[in-house]
């Protein structure tokens, strides 16, 4: 049987395999999105704590962040699945186990991105909130976080793609995710077809969707700070005006970031 015939046969197998593979893919998407949502919540809470001047908030946050960054996702997965029940805490579904492990692991990484972007908001903004006597929750929610948000998106986008790829280890606690189904496909076809072809393309395309989605979020967040064009302008095929001149704030580096667009 020559190579082409074999590939044709593989594609027929793929057709029969389709529904299973699709279910696995949907599970991977769900794990990624729900895990990312949990990771984001954890990242914001830990990041705010780690950026707080209060040692009683900062100290515990640092311990938690270093612990979950410093131990492997696989070990954490085993921990939640096998060790927590020894303490009487049994999670019914493997999906929950996977989401929790992904959430705490990537949440710890994300906390660093949140903390770093909070401190990157210019000191003048923090000082203005002091001069206006704003309380800490108020200034964070209304002034600092909205600006830090635009700064943290690129790091969070990176972590989101890592989380997607990291989700491939959950088959170890019995979840039939995309990676698991790919392995099943490999058994009846071959490694090249299942992994290098179907697996690579599917993971890549999903990652591409995620990064582009995050890019749009970043464009929107920056536009809200008066930097750069709107999403509509980015997506429109022929901009009516040169972007830089239409948006004086879009090239802050040229003006030292202080007085974009000149003064007058």
């Amino acid at each position, binding site marked *: 049987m020559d190579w082409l015939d074999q590939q044709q046969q593989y594609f027929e197998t793929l057709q029969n395999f389709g529904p299973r593979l699709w279910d696995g893919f949907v599970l991977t998407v769900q794990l990624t999105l729900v895990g990312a949502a949990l990771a984001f919540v954890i990242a914001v809470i830990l990041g705010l704590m780690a950026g707080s001047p209060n040692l009683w908030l900062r100290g515990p946050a640092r311990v938690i962040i270093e612990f979950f960054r410093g131990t492997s996702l696989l070990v954490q997965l085993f921990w939640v699945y096998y060790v927590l029940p020894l303490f009487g805490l049994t999670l019914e579904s493997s999906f929950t186990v996977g989401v929790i492990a992904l959430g705490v692991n990537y949440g710890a990484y994300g906390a660093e991105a949140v903390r770093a972007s909070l401190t990157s908001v*210019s000191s*003048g*903004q923090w*000082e*203005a909130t*002091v*001069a*206006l*006597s*704003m*309380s800490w929750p*108020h200034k964070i929610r*209304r*002034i600092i976080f*909205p*600006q830090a948000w635009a700064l943290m998106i690129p790091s969070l986008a990176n972590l989101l793609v890592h989380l997607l790829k990291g989700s491939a280890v959950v088959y170890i606690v019995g979840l039939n995710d995309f990676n698991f189904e790919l392995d099943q496909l490999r058994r009846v076809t071959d490694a090249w077809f299942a992994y290098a072809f179907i697996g690579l393309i599917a993971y890549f395309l999903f990652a591409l969707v995620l990064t582009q989605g995050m890019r749009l979020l970043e464009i929107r967040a920056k536009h*809200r*700070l*008066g*930097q750069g064009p709107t999403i509509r302008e980015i997506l429109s095929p022929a901009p009516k005006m040169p972007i830089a001149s239409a948006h*004086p*704030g879009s090239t802050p580096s040229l003006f030292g970031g*202080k*007085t*974009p*667009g*000149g*003064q*007058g």
Partner: protein
Amino acid sequence: MPTPTDPETPVIEFVDVEKRFGDNIVLKDLNFSVRRGERVTLIGPSGSGKTTILRLVMTLEELTGGYIFVDGEPLTHREKDGKRVPVSAKEQKQLRTRIGMVFQQFNLFPNMTVLENIIEAPIHVLGQSKSEATAKAHSLLEQVGLPDKANEHPMSLSGGQQQRVAIARALAMDPEILLLDEVTSALDPEVVGDVLNILRTVADTTNVTMLIVTHEMSFARDVSHKVMMFDGGRVVEEGAPEKIFSDPTHERTKQFLSAVLRDA
């Protein structure tokens, strides 16, 4: 508004104030007071500690020695059994709402419109209703000559316009004390006059106490009741502007004035 206090009580009083950054002593044994409605300009070479004084009053810097009183009440520390004891956060906040500051770099919030910048703190810190704060904001924008910019984003405004919004934002809090920290230093020369004229009007039409750091000597001469010449963290000479500018007694003041007035 704060409780009416004895008109004879100084609005700001520095007692044996010392400020050091590590081993670097910026202010030493500083004693002075500012009366209600008085406008005091601090002049002197850069590094002489003028801006630090404003930042201490705004609680943007930690006071390392001595006491600062606002309306006769301790701003950061009080003396108790011969020791310096920090005041509570609540006490400090209560005093701080009486103080407003305009910064060299404007520090408007880029995630809000001009109007939102102005009404944010009156609503959320002073508890004003939205309609009350908005009405006040519009009249302040009128006053600073920007009645049609309420819904613009700060980054689309010129430097001079941003600074005028920043002045309106500080005045919206009805401060007893207004701190002006080199408010024209980041502006193009041709718009400096506009901003100073607005501040002259504020000085003429209100009873707000002003502590001013500026390199604009003619402005200092016009608006201030008292000029204090600083060098090396100490007051070299102080007096009425006519006296200081026309007939300085101290050699260091003469040197400094001849240098800055030659530039002007």
